[in-house]
């Protein structure tokens, strides 16, 4: 196999795996944090604004993890440096 084929296979497969795992794990974490925030809000409705704000900040932090994975898979597919290096040769 040529090196360009190998690079294409590796990038496409890695991009899929990256997005798959990178969506799965933060989703579990986000579900846990939302459920415990709902529990806390049901027990103490007075503290709801503070809990909501902290929940949003935490959710965005968790979300950014999966966004990192997404950015990496986008780079692998659309702007792959190794691929363009081989093509330029």
């Amino acid at each position, binding site marked *: 196999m040529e090196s360009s084929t190998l690079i294409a296979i590796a990038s496409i497969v890695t991009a899929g795996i990256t997005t798959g795992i990178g969506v799965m794990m933060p989703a579990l974490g986000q579900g846990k944090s939302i459920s415990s925030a709902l529990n806390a809000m049901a027990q103490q409705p007075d503290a709801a604004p503070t809990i909501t704000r902290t929940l*949003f900040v935490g959710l*965005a932090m968790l979300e950014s993890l999966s966004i990192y994975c997404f950015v990496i898979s*986008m780079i692998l597919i659309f702007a792959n440096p190794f691929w363009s290096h081989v093509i330029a040769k």
Partner: protein
Amino acid sequence: MKLSPDETIFWQYKFITINLTMVTTWALMLVMLVSSWLVTRKLKGDVKVSRWQCILEMIVIGIKNQIKEIGLNKPEKFIGFIGTLFLFITLSNICIIFPGYEAPTGSLSTTAALALCVFLAVPFFGISEVGILGYLKSYLQPTFIMLPFNIISEVSRTLALAIRLFGNIMSGGMIVSILLSIAPLIFPVLMTILGLITGIVQAYIFSILAIVYIAAATQEPKSKEKKVISKTK
């Protein structure tokens, strides 16, 4: 497929390039400048104020209360910086309802510039609040062993700020453009509405994180407070 609006180039002369990101940023700046000038041209202290002044007061007081809730006691000092960040990111994110518009926050150069502003603002506000020694002491919290990790976190959180905003906005635009080729009728509209929500939440998160970082740098070291308390006892 385009990853960012940086690749649409209007005008180029040697190494100076003017691309879509810069043009959109300038247009947004112009809109914000002109609208705020129009509103603040005739401010009144009466009971009866114009509706635009009412909106502006609501925005300013809202941002002020948010800053105060996080723990910065003098929000007037920080509202210029935090409010500018928040308003610029919000405006550039909610303008995606206009067709043909590409958000400048969907380009890594804009978000990196905003994150660098936060990176520089933290020592600036920290030194002006607690002095150089007090600011440097915040690197030694809780013990001096944490010094390298504090320095690493300073850099990595700046990177995270930039990538988070860029990734969220870029992914929104990319999902819409992929859906346009698969199901062009209704789904792109729904995803754009979702993009509006994520855009506003990301603007909120960006400014909240900036406030949290500044608040962490401007707080007095806790050991000093304990000493004061023990002295008064």
